[in-house]
């Protein structure tokens, strides 16, 4: 489904701020799989997701999604194939527009936007039906501006919008990190539900070790722009949080990590 080969990206090259964000990444994602990407701050997990989404063009390497060479496609063009949920709950929806208007745009993601009425009664009925799946009572508030909703509600709607038309791949960039624990759990549960029901191919960057173990069927660990561990299939089934921590330690012993990073990891994940 997704094939990444030799992906390299350096930000601010030849300056003192130079960051080698992605160093020769090779990654193949199978159709219907749910992959978690974990790693320290600055390990390149979000950069990898942004490279797939098209926020920037890589220095070298290639990205093949659903048989299409998307490496040089502009961001908006890739949206035909990609559904996205951002870390910032406010990033995925237009705050001053109503729930219905936001969803109507997602109903035509990657398609043309004709000069016909957007929020018709037919569209409204469909929206009502699918929004009620969230069990947040939002189906009765379709004409409220999205800005009046909570972060959790907005993130749940963004998730729904990203998957309204089945994407070739769903990219989740720490989409529960900015939410309170209760909303985060709810959105995580919803993610699992939608991904299973629609049989989606998904990639999720997360800081929550628990989420990485619970939700997906594959875990990829990144450090300093490289993939340092990859648990798949039966390996993944056996992985527990201590195993992941042990891997972090092992990487550290290989002197890929320095002491401060290992400490940071423990603080973040344990």
């Amino acid at each position, binding site marked *: 489904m997704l094939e990444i080969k030799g992906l390299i990206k350096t930000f601010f090259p030849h300056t003192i701020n130079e960051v080698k964000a992605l160093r020769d990444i090779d990654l193949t994602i199978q159709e219907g799989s749910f992959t978690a990407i974990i790693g320290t701050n600055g390990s390149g997990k979000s950069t990898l997701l942004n490279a797939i*989404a098209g926020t920037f063009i890589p220095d070298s390497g290639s990205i093949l999604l659903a048989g299409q060479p998307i490496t040089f496609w*502009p*961001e*908006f*063009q*890739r*949206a*035909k194939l990609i559904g*996205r949920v*951002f870390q910032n709950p*406010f*990033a*995925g*929806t*237009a*705050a*001053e*527009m109503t729930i219905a*208007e*936001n969803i*109507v*745009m*997602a109903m*035509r*993601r*990657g*398609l043309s*936007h*004709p*000069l*016909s*009425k*957007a*929020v018709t009664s037919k569209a409204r009925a469909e929206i009502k039906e699918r929004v009620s799946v969230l069990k947040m009572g939002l189906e009765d508030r379709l004409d409220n501006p999205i800005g009046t909703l909570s972060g959790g509600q907005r993130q749940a709607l963004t998730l729904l*919008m*990203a998957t309204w038309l089945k994407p070739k791949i769903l990219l989740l960039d720490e989409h529960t990190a900015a939410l309170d624990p209760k909303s985060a759990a709810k959105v995580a549960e919803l993610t699992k539900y939608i991904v299973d029901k629609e049989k989606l191919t998904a990639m999720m960057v997360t800081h929550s070790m628990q989420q990485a173990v619970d939700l997906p069927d594959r875990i990829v660990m990144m450090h300093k722009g490289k993939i340092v561990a990859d648990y798949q299939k039966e390996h993944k089934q056996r992985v527990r949080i201590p195993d992941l921590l042990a891997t972090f330690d092992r990487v550290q012993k290989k002197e890929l990590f320095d002491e401060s990073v290992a400490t940071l990891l423990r603080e973040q994940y344990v």
Partner: protein
Amino acid sequence: MNLVIGAFTIGLILSLLSLGMLISFRMIRFTDITVDGSLTLGAAITAVLIAAGWSPLLATMVAFVAGMLAGSVTGLLYTRFKIQEILSGILVMTALYSVNLRIMGRSNVPLLDTATVSLPLQHLLSQMTDGERYILLFGWQVPVVDMAAFLSSLLLCAVFAWMLSRFLQTHFGTVLRATGNNVQMVRAQGINNNMMVVFSLALSNGLVALSGALLAQYQGFADVQMGIGMMVWGLASIIIGEALVGKSGIGIAIAGTIFGTILFRLLIAIALRWGLNPNDLKLVTALFVFLALVAPRWFKFVHVKINKKSKHA
């Protein structure tokens, strides 16, 4: 009464300017100064074409298209060449000053005793009143010419307001509004946000040029200076409209903008009547916009202070 009718007519004509600016300033959040140039552009083209014997309606339509072109240039400078939004507008506005002089051949083109878009309505009114030159309206004698100008501006304004409100509720219009609200989201929905900005600025400046075209016909001349300060004028009208009716919903925003423009024009007419020096008009307008922008924040500040005091007490 003539003063009021006149103020209403100009208010309605300038409503198209404000509606255009509603698209750029409020919908896609683009501070577009092209307005000062494209208003004059519309006036200049219409004046020259009508003077050359074109039909007023056709001349007005050409002005609309020219305005759209001017707006697209600003949009392309911003999106394609990555020039800051204000500077893009300033460049096009400055260039348009020369373009407008070229079009007119001099700094002022009079339109005396020529046809205007309100001519058909004027004939109709004349027929209805058996060739009378005045119509009785609430006991006042209003010249048929003025009445026709008023009614045709009302008609045009209503038609464009209706079309705009319908347009903004289409799929395309929804995307346009979202572009100003959250660019990241719009891109994630597969929309070319740069194209939306260019289109919005084209539409916006088309309406502005249309307003200029009608204004030239109403006041009987086009002048190369007539666009100066019009952006601030339109902004003031939008702010008044929002203060009057709020901004929830498209229909309300459009109606508010039209009311705001007419009210602002009436206020100016009254102020001039009371002896305001016309030379001070732009200063007063700028001051008004400044106060309108600062007042809400200031009120909030005072409010917070009062709350704090009452808590301490």
